[in-house]
Structures are given as structure tokens and as C-alpha cells.
């Protein structure tokens, strides 16, 4: 998608334009994607939200305080399937709410495989949190209505943080005088012509030229050092020409605004000033790390950005290494969910930042998906969402021409102002007008039908990913009476899910690292993989042989064993836990066997022995 109107684009993962040129590649569809237990995309019941639940046309989006109020409301309305947790505060003291969504009647949230989903890391990417607000509303409204949703919520847990940077989101969504909450001293640019919006300025250096020069509406800066509303000093970029109202000169020299997407601990890069003072120095990011590492059941981390306009796409680890650096089993998993995304969102792709150096070749460090994978041994994934307009030609992408056409035909051109002459104090005779500047870019916001389509799509994809979780099952529970009157009890356990109980080979590598030393080995390595444990309780007898619980190790999931053995028609791999029970002299004897693994849920079966 071509840059609109020549103005500066905001950087996302790599500092390159968020409006990427689209590559409509050939999609390799793996037939395994839509299979017996993995959630089919088409199975969901349609969701028509009420205005209270969701409004696809609302712009600007709701401010952080209003979102929190709504989330609290939902927690009160659906106590059986959602709880709001106050996991920390933003740097300015706003509450960070994390919504734990599961059917609490089938078990505590932590007793089921969990997905951590977050948005808002980049506050200029305003649509991201909106996707999660939709996700929450739909999930809660459709529980008990949509069998697919009910099934997922009964057996998985979602941990959703809609907005990781509410302080900056507040600034982003109050950036025009006409918008509620606008504060002049906090916003870049200036409404020179008093139309209520910060739009654009254009002029020609030379009257004979064809091309205009563009800058956001405002006065030019002539000082070298600035402090932004958040107290960070930065060097002005002459390209923006924005005047930032100085509060005071800061003598610390260079401090730059931290990028929340560089503050996670994996591959954290000190020389990237956006990375912050140290890994997890940002209170919001620290809150995420603390919460996530406390919950051993989380197997997937999904981090939503909003670099998508014409097209959406996904980001996978590793940001700094080629795909083959990853264990082939983990690599294979990413390929499969990428393929699923291509099916659901035709032609949309997934890639890692390693393959899009954007000309810098620099290390990009501190990203959430890399942290999730490298340090926690779970699957991390990033989504670049957003979009508006209409795909008139059905190409799967909304081009800038289609966006403009939609803006004029469907939106009455409401997001742009006509070009009017203005005498600029520094530039002289210019014109002011064009698209209003917004944090995401000088083009129409992500609202309308495209958002209806894409938030729906995102919801289905998240449910699909959730359906891939490992699931331990007791597939057989048998007993055999022995000559001496005892009973031998065997429990066959298997993993009914697609992902293995260890989740990634990386987790095994961390925990089984040969980095363990003898001296000091009591300082154990903190395991990231959790094997399956089987417990038994007896009614009317006692265990005389066999440990309780028994650690039966890990159970591979379908992605692993079907790929390995499908051709050979192997049985589902299972493991057995065995005990010997001595019954009481008389009376009924029964056993209850329970298998559980932190990231694979649990299963219970009873058996009457006598």
C-alpha cells in the first residue's frame, strides 16, 4: 500500500512503514489444519453485538477509563466465566486489568491450559485493544449460545489484557481539539487554522514542481533538544517539523521514549534507547512478566499490534535468527498455525523479523513473542491487525485507492478536511487540510465493515489456537485381581491435544540443560516444562505399591505423533501408571485416578474394584 499523502509513518516492529507493500504469495494449505479436534473456523455462531457491547463505527475509540469501567461491569455481569484482576498500575497510576475468562465451574483458571493475550504495547497502534474488547464481549456473550465457545471456555482459560499502555493510549485518543480530553500542552502539532483538527500542511518548494511537500499541521521547531509530555527528552526530527511544547530543559542529555515492545527480557538490547533502562523496567511490562510466570498453565502468548491496514499479518519468533535455528518440531508448529491463518485470512502471511531487516541489520530485542519462546518455552506470536475501507475488487487487500473511495463514498469524506490556503509563520503560503493526523497515520481510522470482518476473524483465530492446547486424558483405567487378594490398577494416559505437554522443545532444552552443575545444583534450574502427574485415591483400601503421585513424564501431542507416525498407523502414544491396592477386609472398593499437567489440564476417572 503506498504511503498516503507523503507524511511520516509510524514505526512498528522494525521501524519500517506500517503500510507494507503486499505480497500476495501462494498459500500452502496443510490439510492438518482443519482436523478432528482443532477448531473449525466456520463453526462459530454469528455475533451481532448491541451498541453497549460493541460499536464498529465508534471513533475515536473509548478512552482507557471507560474501557476499565466496562470491563468491571462485565466482571459483575458474568461472574461464572470471567474475573477481573488488577495486575498492576501504569506509570501514571492507571489500573491495568487482566480478564481471566474460563468456566470456573469446570475448574480454576490455572487448572486448564491458558492463553495470554495482550494489546496496546504500541499506543499509536490504536485498533489493537479494540480487537480484544470485541473478543471479550463476544466470548462472554456467546458462552452457552455458541457450542464452540462453550467448549473452549469449559476446557481452556484466556488471560486478556486489552491495553498495556493506557497512559499513552489516552494521549493518542485525545489528539485533536475537537476530541474530548484534548490538552494542547500534551499534543504535538497545532491546529493553526482552528478547524478543530490537526490535519496536514502542503506546499510546493517550487511552483513548477508536481509534487507537494507535506508536514503535519503545526509550527516548525528550531531547537535541538525537547522534552515530551512524558518527561523524555529527545532530539527533534526535522522531518516532522512538529512543535512540542517545552516544559523545561532537561540536563540529562539524551533520554528517549521507551518502546514497550523492546522492554521484555529476551535478547534485550542495551544500545536501543527505546528498550528502556533495563529489562522489565516498565511497570506495565513487569506486571505482565510477573503474572505470566506465576501461572504455570500458560502455553501461548499472543501480542496484538496494529500495523495492518490494507492487510493484516502475523509475526513469529525468532526475530534475530533464521527459522532453522529453532528446533524443527517447534518450527513445524509455527508453520501449521501460519497456514491456518492464510486459510482464514486468504493471502495473509506470517514471518519473523529476521527476514525483514528493513535495511538496518540491527538486532531487534526485547519483543514479547521472543521472550515467550526463548525464556518461557511457550509459543509466542504477534498479530498486526487493523483496517478500514472496502476490498472492492476482492483481492484480499484494501489499497489506498480503495480506501479513498470508501472514505468518499461510504464515509462522506468525514475524516479529511478540504485544502484551504494559510499563511504559515515560517513556511509562508501553504495549504492546510487533507486527512486528519492520527497516531496510526494520516488516513481513515480502522472502523466500519472492515473492522467487523477483521475482529470476527481475529476471534475465530484465537479460538482455533486455544483448541490446539495439550489435553491429558485417561484413556483406559483397568484393574486386575492378584492371587494374594490385592488389585493391580493401571491407568493409561495419553495426550488428546495437538501440542505436546512440554509445549515446545525449547522448554525441554531450558529444563534439561546440561548447564546444571554439581556444586550449587541445589539452586535448581527453574523448569519451564511440567510433566504429567498421576494421582490415585482409594475408598475402602490402601495403596501398597506405587508412588503417589507418579510422574509419568511428557506426552506428545498430535502435531508430533501424527507427523511422525501417521503413515505407519501407529496407535496413539500413551503411558501407564500402576499401583497395587490392598482392599479392606470387606466392603466396596473403588479408586479415583486423576492425571494432570500444568499446561495440559486434567482428567479424572473412577473405577470400582469390588
Amino acid at each position, binding site marked *: 500500500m503506498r504511503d498516503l499523502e507523503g507524511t511520516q509513518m509510524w514505526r512498528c516492529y522494525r521501524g519500517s512503514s506500517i503500510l507494507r507493500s503486499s505480497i500476495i504469495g501462494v498459500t500452502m494449505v496443510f490439510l492438518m489444519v482443519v482436523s478432528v479436534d482443532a477448531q473449525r473456523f466456520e463453526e462459530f455462531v454469528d455475533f451481532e453485538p448491541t451498541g453497549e457491547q460493541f460499536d464498529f463505527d465508534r471513533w475515536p475509540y473509548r478512552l482507557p477509563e471507560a474501557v476499565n469501567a466496562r470491563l468491571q461491569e462485565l466482571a459483575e455481569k458474568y461472574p461464572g466465566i470471567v474475573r477481573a484482576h488488577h495486575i498492576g498500575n501504569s506509570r501514571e497510576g492507571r489500573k491495568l486489568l487482566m480478564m481471566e475468562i474460563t468456566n470456573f465451574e469446570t475448574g480454576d483458571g490455572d487448572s486448564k491450559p491458558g492463553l495470554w493475550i495482550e494489546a496496546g504495547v504500541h499506543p499509536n497502534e490504536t485498533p489493537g485493544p479494540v480487537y480484544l474488547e470485541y473478543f471479550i464481549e463476544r466470548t462472554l456473550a456467546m458462552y452457552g449460545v455458541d457450542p464452540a465457545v462453550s467448549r473452549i471456555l469449559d476446557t481452556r482459560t484466556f488471560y486478556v489484557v486489552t491495553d498495556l499502555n493506557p497512559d499513552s493510549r489516552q494521549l493518542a485518543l485525545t489528539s485533536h481539539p475537537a476530541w474530548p480530553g484534548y490538552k494542547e500542552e500534551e499534543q504535538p502539532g497545532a491546529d493553526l487554522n482552528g478547524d478543530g483538527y490537526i490535519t496536514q500542511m502542503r506546499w510546493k518548494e517550487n511552483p513548477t514542481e508536481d509534487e507537494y511537500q507535506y508536514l503535519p499541521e503545526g509550527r516548525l521547531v528550531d531547537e535541538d533538544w525537547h522534552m515530551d509530555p512524558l518527561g523524555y527528552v529527545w532530539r527533534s526530527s526535522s522531518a516532522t517539523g512538529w512543535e512540542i511544547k517545552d516544559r523545561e530543559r532537561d540536563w540529562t542529555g*539524551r533520554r528517549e521514549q521507551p518502546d514497550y515492545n523492546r522492554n521484555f527480557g529476551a535478547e534485550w538490547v542495551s544500545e536501543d534507547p527505546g528498550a528502556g533502562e533495563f529489562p522489565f523496567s516498565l511497570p506495565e511490562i513487569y506486571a505482565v512478566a510477573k503474572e505470566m510466570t506465576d501461572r504455570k498453565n500458560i502455553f501461548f502468548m499472543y501480542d496484538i499490534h496494529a500495523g495492518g491496514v490494507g492487510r493484516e499479518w502475523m509475526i513469529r519468533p525468532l526475530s534475530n535468527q533464521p527459522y532453522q535455528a529453532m528446533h524443527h518440531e517447534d518450527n513445524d508448529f509455527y508453520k501449521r498455525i501460519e497456514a491456518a491463518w492464510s486459510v482464514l485470512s486468504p493471502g495473509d502471511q506470517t514471518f519473523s523479523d529476521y527476514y525483514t531487516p528493513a535495511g538496518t541489520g540491527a538486532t531487534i530485542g526485547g519483543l514479547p513473542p521472543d521472550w515467550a519462546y526463548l525464556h518461557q518455552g511457550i509459543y509466542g506470536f504477534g498479530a498486526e491487525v487493523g483496517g478500514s475501507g472496502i476490498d472492492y475488487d476482492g483481492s484480499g487487500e484494501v489499497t489506498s485507492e480503495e480506501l479513498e473511495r470508501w472514505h468518499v463514498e461510504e464515509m462522506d469524506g468525514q475524516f479529511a478536511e478540504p485544502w484551504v490556503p494559510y499563511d504559515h509563520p515560517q513556511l509562508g503560503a501553504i495549504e492546510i487540510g487533507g486527512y486528519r493526523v492520527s497516531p496510526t497515520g494520516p488516513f481513515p481510522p480502522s472502523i466500519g465493515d472492515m473492522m467487523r470482518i477483521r475482529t470476527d476473524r481475529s476471534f475465530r483465530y484465537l479460538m482455533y489456537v486455544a483448541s490446539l492446547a495439550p489435553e491429558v486424558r485417561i484413556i483406559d483405567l483397568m484393574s486386575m485381581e492378584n492371587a494374594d487378594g490385592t488389585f493391580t490398577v493401571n491407568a493409561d494416559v495419553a495426550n488428546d491435544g495437538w501440542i505436546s505437554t512440554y509445549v515446545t522443545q525449547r522448554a525441554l532444552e531450558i529444563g534439561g540443560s546440561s548447564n546444571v552443575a554439581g556444586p550449587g545444583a541445589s539452586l535448581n534450574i527453574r523448569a519451564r516444562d511440567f510433566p504429567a502427574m498421576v494421582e490415585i485415591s482409594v475408598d475402602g483400601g490402601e495403596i501398597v505399591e506405587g508412588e503417589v503421585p507418579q510422574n509419568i513424564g511428557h506426552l506428545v501431542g498430535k502435531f508430533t505423533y501424527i507427523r511422525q507416525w501417521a503413515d505407519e498407523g501407529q496407535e496413539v502414544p500413551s503411558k501407564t501408571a500402576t499401583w497395587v491396592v490392598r482392599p479392606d477386609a470387606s466392603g466396596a472398593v473403588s479408586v479415583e485416578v486423576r492425571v494432570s499437567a500444568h499446561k495440559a489440564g486434567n482428567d479424572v476417572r473412577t473405577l470400582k474394584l469390588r
Partner: protein
Amino acid sequence: MRVFLLMLLMVSIMGPSAYGQGSLNAIVDGLTNIEYDFSRWPYPLYAEVSERLQELAVQYPEIANLQTIGKTAEGRDIWLMEITSSSTGSGDSKPGLWIDGNLHAHEVNGRVRAMYFIERLLATYGVDEVVTRLIDSRVFYIVPMFDADGGERSLTRHPAWTGHEPNRQAGSDLNGDGYISSMRIKDPDGWWYESPQDSRVMLRLRARDDGRWNYVATEHDETKYWRSSGQQVVGSTTVGAASRWMSTGEGPPPIEHQVPPEERYSIYTEGMDSSYPIDDINLTVNGFERNVGMESPPSDFNRDWGAEWRPDEPGGGPFPFSVPEVRAAAYFITEHKNIFFQYNMHADQTARNYTARPGLHHPYDWMAPEDNEFYTRIGAVWSAMGGGNIIENNYYSQEIAAGAYTDVQHGCEIDWAYISRGIHALMPEGMAIGKDYDGDRYVTVQEILRWNDEDKEGKFWGHWESFQHPTLGVVEIGGPLGIPPALDERMREESNLHYRFLLHIADLAPALKIADLSAERIAEGEYRVVARLQNQGYLATYVSRKALEIRRDNPILARLEIDTGEVLGGGALQNAGHILGKHSYLWRWGAGADESTKTVEWRVRAESGAEVSIEVRAAQAGRDRRTIILEG
């Protein structure tokens, strides 16, 4: 004589200096006009240390300021004593030195060393010329009890000690001697055997491989072989080879066991079961881990820092800076950009004390030559002061090479200081008990035992004695009995050594000054103002080359102030970049060149008689200010 000549050489290399950069001989050794008890054991507990810090802050209000940088996991204040002269400027206007002790729970002598440093510094201000000059021109940030919770548990470990709470200690005192010591049990798979020299001492199993001794695991899988060379060195902040976080592994060479199975033991902390195996040869650890926290596995405070942090590091914790105390320190240090050095005091048990330098897992030439040279130099000073103590890192450490630790000890404080902050740091290790009976400057376990037997009535180390254990059968109880990490004369010497060394380091800071200030009239109502800036210190204003590489350097900012006039052209505030210090230019050019100055100029529109002030600042090099009247 040799030492004197060496010191002369030092002074001449570093140049004569008004700033005492050869201050080896400037600090009078033995100036101990403070009373300090080096014989007290157990050391003072948290409440007493806190009270003393508060007393000192009240007693010396002009130069001492006590702050809390946060709370420990158990809610204690983490005390930081800021020492600087308030009459010469605020702390953050001067180069800062961070010093911490008792980062590891058991290494409690760090708190004594730190308190001694504080007390002596405060008491000799106005008396000792060097101390006075340094307190006027630097700021010291001292945290005596970094792991206050762990230190408290360590100093109340034994029933014989005040404040003991049994349920907060691993193990228990089965034989009622007042100490939770060790139990040894014959075990063909055990890692330990009895020392042929003294039956009280247990040695860890070694094996010989082609003439070289290495520590070895005695697991059933005999091929598990620890060698740091076999492990992939990972975790550098720069991205390396494709599989940098996958271990390579080498096949083990054939080994021959030295100790037959029937002579092997397993050792556990004295207690009701075998829950706490002793696998560390560190005397002070004694089966109780050096970290804090009731969580399992616990986090090691010196593995939680963010540089080269690894998830598979024993004690690394769930994520970097997850430990509240470490996090609090990181906030303080990163906010105080004037800090140019971190001194992290530990108490590893070795026969001779040493200090560790960054990067712990890299060869020396991994560092930029200028930075490497700095460590060589202060290492030489450390050796001179300490009578032959060495400076090293893990990469070259004998222990590591012997396979004692494989590739562990990532996420350490000093690596973070250098790799992520670009400031210099040292981690001195220092046990100080026993006596150097044979005068070879090594204090071996045998000499510690002799001191224990002859001077301490044998109270610190018990012989192995049979005991009928409730569940484990017959065991033998013995081993160290609450032995301190430092005591008496050796502790006095060691505290004195660190005191002098720290003052030497403080003296090496960059020192930004306005060497001169002049103005000339260049046109009607227009003047050129010229400030010649000078770094009169030892380190460059950027402190380390690393800081430049990672863009965490703090450049010189120069600002002109004028009430009755205005600045033309570039602006009142200018970024003047950096100025080398003696370390850089003397090393490069010898005594012949002087690259210590730089000029900054402004043009102003003003009338004759106007007053112009120039202020210069560089976070780690201090500040200066001068005023001039425009003439002509």
C-alpha cells in the same frame, strides 16, 4: 622494598597528580581513629545495623544522608547511605560510586566491610586530606545489607544464636550442640570423600583426565562430564551464531576415578531427613543456599541482573529483575546516571582473596582495549595493595576450567554494570578467617582448622561423631559449626584493604572543569564567548568504550545563561561530546600529549557590562560553573 618500588612505579605511570591518582601512599595505613570490633560474631543483625546507620546520619548531617531504596521481599527497608558533602553540591551533581555488601545471604561479612567503610569515611572527614577531598567531590552510595532478609536468616541460623527461629531454617540441630551442621552417610554414589590430611574435612570427588584433575559427577550416567569448554557460551547482548542458545556438548574423554565407591559419602544438612544435600564446597554455605526466598527453586540475587541472563541458569529466577531487591537497586542505579562504578562485595571461600572483573564469561580481549587496560591497571593496584591478590574472571578461573561450574554464573551484577550500563565494576571475593601461619599469603583449610583449634578452642569445626538418626540409620554429624566468613585480624586487614582500594577507585572518576572562560567583542553589540573545558580526571567522560558502543554515555552539556541579552545562532544549550581522561590519552600517547581539553563557543547579542554564566555538566564527570562580565 619491592612493594615500595612498585608503588613508586605506579605513581610515576599514573603521573603526579593534584588529585591523588597515585593515592596508594596518600592514605595513611593504620589510620584507625575509629573503634571497630572485628571480633564480634555473629555480626550485628538488621535492627542494630539500621539503628547505627540512623545514628550516623544524625551525627554527620552535612555529609551523610540515609535513604531507603525500596523494600525487601519480607518488607524490610533496603538502606542506602549517601555520603557526600552537601555544601559542595547535591549527590547527583558529582561522580558516584555504588558499593554493596551482603548481596548473597550468607556472605554477611559484606555488611561489616560496608559499615567499616562508612564509619571510617565519616569519622575522618576533615581529618584525612584525601577523604575530605573525595567526599567533597564525589558521592558514595552504600548499601550494607542488600539481601537484608537472607542476611538475617543467615545470622540467626543456629539455635545457639540470638533470634533463631527453627521453622525458618533448613535442617535442624539433631544432636543438640546448638548448631545445624552436617551429616555424612556412606554412599557409593556420593560426591565426597574424607581428606587424608584432616578427617574433619570432606573433599569433593575428582577424577584425572590425562593428567589433569577435574571435578566429576557421579551419576549413573558416567558420561555426564562438566567442562565449560563443552558448553556453548551464550547470552551476549549481540546476536551471534544461529544456534547460540543450544548447547553443543562434547564427548567426554575417558576418566579414571580416584576414590573407590566404598570410601565415598553423601553429605546433608543436619536434619530430620536428607532434604538438603550439600553439593557446594563453599564453607559458609553449609547446605543452606546463598540465596533468599521460600519459593522453589529460589532466586540467586547475583543471577537476576539483566545482562546475559539465562532461563537455564540455576537461581536465575523467572525473569531478569524479578527479585524485588535487585529491581530496587536497578531503578536507583539507572536513575542516578552519575554512577560510574559499581563495587559488589562477596565472600567466596578461597585460600587467597581475589576480585572478579567483567565480562565473567568472555576472554579479556572481548573487551575494547581501552577498557581492558583499565582493569589491568586497577588490577595491578589491587595486587599491590593486597600483597599479591589477583584479578580474574570466570573465563580464566581455575575452578571453571576444572569443571566445577560448567557455564553458570550468568546474570551477575558486575556484568550488568559493564555490559548494559557501560560503567566499570568489580566483584571482590573475600573470606577472612584463619591465619597465614606459614606466611605464604595463602590461608588454606588446614590453616583455618589450626586457627580454629589453637585460637578458638575448636568451637567452629566439629569432628564427625556417630548419631542414630530417626530415619536414616547411623549417620555422622560434624563439619563447620557456625564458622564466620571473616573475623579478627584478617578481617581488620581485609576491611582496611577494601577501604583504601575504594578511595583509590573514587579518585579515578572523570572530573569536568571550566579551565578558562573568555569573551571578545566581534561586532557592535555582539560577543563571542569561549569556554575551554577540561577533564582533569583519570577516566574519560564517557567512562568506558562500552558506554559509547551501547549509546549509554552521558555527553557534556554546556549552557550559556544571560539575563540582558540573547544567544545567536546555535542555541544556549550545546552538546559538547566527550573529553578523554588521563587513562585514555596517557595510555595512547605517553606523557607527551594532552588531550584533556575542548572548546565550546557561543555568540551573543549583548551590551558591555552584561553578565554571562557558563555551566557545564556531564553526568559522571560532575559540574562546573563560571561567570564573566562582557567588556569592550
